[in-house]
Structure formats: C-alpha cells, structure tokens
C-alpha cells in the first residue's frame, strides 16, 4: 500500500477562511482521497441518528464525488478518483459538531435532519472547493454576475433553488482536486470527467465497539 500524501492548505474566500486537510493515496489503478471526520455529537442525539448521519454522508459523498473524475498523468495513464470518509476521533482532518433537528449547516456544524446533499457540499469545502452561490459578504460572490458565481447546477452552488437532483461536481472542481494532489504528490495530473454509472444504493454501517466507545467519549466532551 502506498504511503499517504497529506494535503494541507489554507483557503480564503474573504471574509470566509478555512483549512483544507485530507490524505491521498496514489495507487497504480486509482487515486484514493480520504477525509477523516470527527463527528462530535450533541448529547441529545440518539445513537441511531448519529449512525444515520454517517451513512447519509458516506452515500452522499459516494454519489457526488465517485465515478466522476479520472486523474490523467503525463504518460496519459488515467486513474479514477475515489473519495471516502472515515469517521474517527484519531487525528481527524475535520471536526464537526452534530446538532439535533434542522438548521443552517456549515463546515463545522451539521444537523441530523439536514438534506444529505449539504454534507457532500461541506465535504467539498473540506477538499478545498469554494462556494459558488451569491453571498453579499463575499468579495468574489457578491452579485449574480460576480466571478465566483456559477448557475450550472453545481454541488457548490445554489442547488436549493436550481434543483438538488441536478446538482453535480463540474470539471473545474476536478481540476482543483487534480492541482492539489499534483502539488502535494509531485506528480503532474489533469482531471477529466469519467462516464457516469448509477451509484450504489444505500448501505449499512455497523456500530462497532470502537465507534460506541468514541460516541461515549464525544458525549463526555460536550
């Protein structure tokens, strides 16, 4: 198994700013991107809801990020990009507080009953992708014709108005990921879109002993 390469970069979309941190594994036939999330749950949240959020997040990330891009090296070899989430309290790349019910999510605060697409959107930020919807606070996204705005059914755009079912990652997002992986791994890569295949259906995540211990530990911290 190849050594992981860490990507650790400060991203600015003033007045927004955050650190994008994740790991990539360059394999012969594919490239893995792994994001380790510490999901700290509010003490009012039942275990089944924590598990629901984990499964929904994994499914949503699988739907939007996988079978989407290939990374092509200078010799023309194409490797599919695979993004996965690992929920762990051990050296996480991203710490998220989970709250009950519904609310406005952001990179560090998620809600149990939020639409799962919002968690794929937040994972996009964790992988360094910027927002693409209008925000009068943002210098680059203040108006509908500002340079940082896209109206093309982007996962990072205003999918609530444009249509959740049509949201997807775009070529420009693959290029951002390719540039970051190239820079960190020292291998020139370019992104190209991969033909879409119907994603796998929902799957179950077992509540392991390690997970149950972590769940108790998280509660003790709040």
């Amino acid at each position, binding site marked *: 198994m190849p050594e992981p390469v860490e990507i650790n970069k400060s991203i600015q*979309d003033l*007045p*927004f*700013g*955050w650190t994008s941190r994740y790991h990539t594994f360059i394999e012969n036939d594919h490239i893995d991107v792994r994001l380790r999330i510490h999901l700290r749950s509010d003490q009012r949240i039942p275990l089944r809801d924590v598990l629901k959020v984990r499964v929904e997040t994994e499914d949503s990330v699988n739907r939007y990020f996988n079978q989407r891009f290939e990374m092509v090296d200078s010799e023309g070899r194409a490797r599919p990009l695979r993004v996965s989430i690992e929920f762990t309290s051990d050296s996480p790349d991203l710490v998220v*507080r989970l709250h009950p*019910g*519904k*609310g*406005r*999510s*952001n*990179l*560090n*605060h998620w809600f149990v009953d939020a639409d799962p697409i*919002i968690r794929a*959107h*937040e994972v996009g*930020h964790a992988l360094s992708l*910027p*927002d693409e*919807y*209008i*925000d009068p*606070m943002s210098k680059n996204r203040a108006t509908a014709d500002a340079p940082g705005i896209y109206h093309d059914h982007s996962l990072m755009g*205003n999918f*609530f*108005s444009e249509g959740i079912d049509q949201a997807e990652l775009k070529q420009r997002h693959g290029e951002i990921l390719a540039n970051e992986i190239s820079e960190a791994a020292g291998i020139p890569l370019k992104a190209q879109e991969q033909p879409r295949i119907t994603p796998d259906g929902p799957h179950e995540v077992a509540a392991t002993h390690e997970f149950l211990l972590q769940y108790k530990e998280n509660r003790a911290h709040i």
Partner: protein
Amino acid sequence: MNTQDSWELLVSSNSSVRYQIGNPHFEGRTTVVIQGNGTASVEFVRGAEKRSYLKQLAPERLEEVRSTLAAYDPRKLTASQKDLVPDEAQIQIEIVEGDRTWVRTFRDQDRWNQSNLQKDVELFESVAREVSGGNVQF
C-alpha cells in the same frame, strides 16, 4: 455596562425586536419581527420563494419573550471577529425603542460559543415556528 443600551425591551407600542439569519441565495433567510404590542411577523426567503406570516402573540407569550430577552439580553453579548467558515450564517439582532436603535451582527459560531445567544436564537426559532404554523423551522 453601557446604560444607553439597557432600556427595557418590548414595553411600548413603538418598540420592536428584529432577528434575521441566513442567506436567501442558499439555505434561505429568516426574519422575525416582534412588536411591543405583541404583533409578530415571520418572513422566509429562498431564491424566488418568499413566505410571510403574521400573528398576534398572546399576552403571556409576549411576556415570555420579554423575560427571555431580559434574561439573555443580546446587548450584553459579544460578536466574534474570527474568519467565517464556509456557509456560516450571520445573525443580526436589532432592538428599537422609540427613536433609540441598537443593532449587532453575530456570527453563527457565536451562538455555539455563547449559550445566552443560543437561548435567544432558540426563542426566535420558536416564534418563527409558532407564527408560521411550523412552516419556518429555523
């Protein structure tokens, strides 16, 4: 404490408290306005979607709003200056009493770091749910 900012809340017909959170171009913007006479309005805007609601709060409910705001007075809270994280909403609270106006903009992180602000947010969310008949949740 600045006595200029310590007048009683919602005690006259020309007084009001206004709470606004969010972005109409993403998860939506919610505005709650409570008047001193007990009239409460709620507006939710997301893209082309706009919903408005109006209701007269019962006297005991208005008193509950007053006492909650007095106990967790927004004017005593501090707004952080840290960078916003992606999708982080701003929370604006405006208090009007006659010709006096107090307004402050908080960041969403402030409510997770200051339990008194979270109490205020929970109050306004409960009024939003009540006035909209459950159609505006947050």
